[in-house]
């Protein structure tokens, strides 16, 4: 679906310095029974977020009052591993996150995130550690993720370049989407199908 064009976000960080945060933690499976896309922000990190009695876990970072409204998540390595559930970026963006910074992203999560205008910003491992120390020392300092310039600007004035898939980047900057791009290429789809009969028919 077409979105608002997006070029940069400036925000203090939500720190989650854990490696291998998997999509079952981002959004537990029992919340995937929804037929809708919206409203998953309340269920983000649900099983870390709430205690067994249902009350918010005061020790979990996103429950802290100072975290409300923040748009940049700084995680450990291999963010978003596990399932293909697109509900993971849906929950993150519904809560308000616009960019996740990590040293690597799982392939399917990265692709899903880009489709939803959630920026997966990968930086070298030593830079991720440096960012983590900066935000630990200054928890309210602001970072800027600038997609137009492909730069991450840190509170100490330093700048880290990052790479986002060029095509996805253009889609996010322009607020357009891939389905429109594919549908515009219908002649190529038609030509391919004429030259390649289907291998199977599920209707047979």
């Amino acid at each position, binding site marked *: 679906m077409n979105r608002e064009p997006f070029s940069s976000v400036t925000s203090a960080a939500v720190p989650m310095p854990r*490696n291998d945060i998997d999509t079952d933690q981002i959004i537990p499976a029992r919340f995937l029974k929804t*037929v809708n896309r919206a409203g998953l922000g309340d269920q983000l990190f649900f*099983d870390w977020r709430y205690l067994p009695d249902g009350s918010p876990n005061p020790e979990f970072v996103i429950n802290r009052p100072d975290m409300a409204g923040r748009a940049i998540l700084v995680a450990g390595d291999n963010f978003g591993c596990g*399932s293909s559930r697109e509900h993971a970026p849906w929950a993150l963006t519904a809560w308000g996150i616009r960019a996740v910074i990590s040293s690597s992203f799982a392939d399917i999560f990265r692709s899903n995130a880009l489709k939803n205008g959630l920026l997966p910003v990968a930086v070298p491992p030593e830079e991720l550690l440096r960012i983590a120390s900066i935000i630990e020392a200054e928890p309210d300092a602001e970072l800027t993720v600038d997609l137009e310039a492909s730069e991450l600007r840190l509170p100490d004035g330093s700048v880290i370049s990052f790479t986002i898939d060029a095509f996805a980047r253009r889609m996010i900057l322009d607020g357009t989407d891939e*389905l429109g791009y*594919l549908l515009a290429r*219908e002649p190529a*789809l038609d030509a391919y199908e004429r030259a390649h009969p289907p291998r199977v028919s599920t209707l*047979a």
Partner: protein
Amino acid sequence: MSDHIPDSARPRTIVDKIWDEHLVAPGTDGAPDILAVDLHLVHEVTSPQAFDGLRDRGLRVRRPGQTLATVDHSIPTTDRSLPIADEIAAKQVSRLEQNCAEFGIPLHGIGSPHQGIVHVIGPELGLTQPGMTIVCGDSHTATHGAFGALAFGIGTTEVEHVLATQTLLQRRPKTFEVRVDGALHPGVTAKDIILSLLSRIGVGGGTGHVFEYGGSAIRGLGMEGRMTICNMSIEGGARAGLVAPDDTTFDYVAGKPHAPHGADWEAALERWRALPSDEDAVHDRTISFDAGELTPMVTYGTNPGMGFPITDRIPDPATMADANQRTSLEHALAYMALTPGEPILGKAIDVVFVGSCTNSRISDLREAARMLRGRRVADGVRMMVVPGSTEVKRQAEAEGLSTVFIEAGAEWREAGCSMCIAMNGDQLSPGQYSVSTSNRNFEGRQGKGGRTFLASPLTAVASAVTGRLSDPRTLL
């Protein structure tokens, strides 16, 4: 990513060959390629929003005849004649039924003899064939790679793209060769091969790559063992994993309901025989190990890479040099309530789950029944056996396997994803330990607070009989 060099000019991997054959249009000006999809499998959880998207744009499904739906994730594994008690799940299932009816997509729903876990029914029906591109809104779509197909999971937005165009925008992946040679010892299975690979490379080891599995140990496996391995490619970060097709593959596909026959079969064989990677094709990475060195594996932690031989002792975070890895292991051991240095053998367990798209096919159930025959599930242990499809259920009953499970004190259920993902009420209570033939041991995966030990069907059954995590070789 490689340039589009003419086919004759360079040695190609099987992934290259499938990619080249399915290229609708190569990407220009930095855009991804447009890749044709031969088969799109659909289930109830990741599709509703995609169908809504089609409706919003006034689009139809382009190729209903290359699309197949079933229900597996959120359905109960109990009596199917009853309405689904969970209202939200019931709504999701009925939404799929409505969407399939509206858009003309064949559906093997509740009550269909072909209903089952989506990655079990595709091969069973002969829809999964060598050389195909196969996608589904589920990361274990990698399973179909066992047939020499390029099969991978997609998100709901991509599901919408495939429904609308029967294509996807994709970039050619890198390849990671996994060679496993030698012979498995008794009690050691395909599941142990993949758990061993994951323990070596970790859950991010294959990111950006597609695995190509080869070597004499892989060749020596039947199709269902190959499916077990390919299924868990995603747990190593690889979106897909393939085994080049051979006579084992062709024999399995032959005669299946949607397999080609007659002259079409001969033509298919000729195409399929050309698929294996060229001898001098280059992979971006490679790993090899000896199957003869493997022993039964089990996971001890909270991701599928945290596994080891079942005879090992729990690792000690203090010995890890990397601070983040040390913290990860500390968290995992705290969640699992395991102590560094203690043996994992002998841990008391509460639940044994034989099922999931990893290990729920007829050969898995035969192995489980063979070990369980004449024995009983230990007091205090709940064992659930969930066949991967209604057809597998039917066959297991015809072979008397279900009688073995029931007489031993296990529950024999209807087909579905069940306790692998615990969306349907089949789940652990907080603190319970399971030995599970499924594919993920993330925190809360099988139920909030549940603690999962991933293992083979043999290890699961051995543990059910003793009530403790057990080495299956002691019960052979």
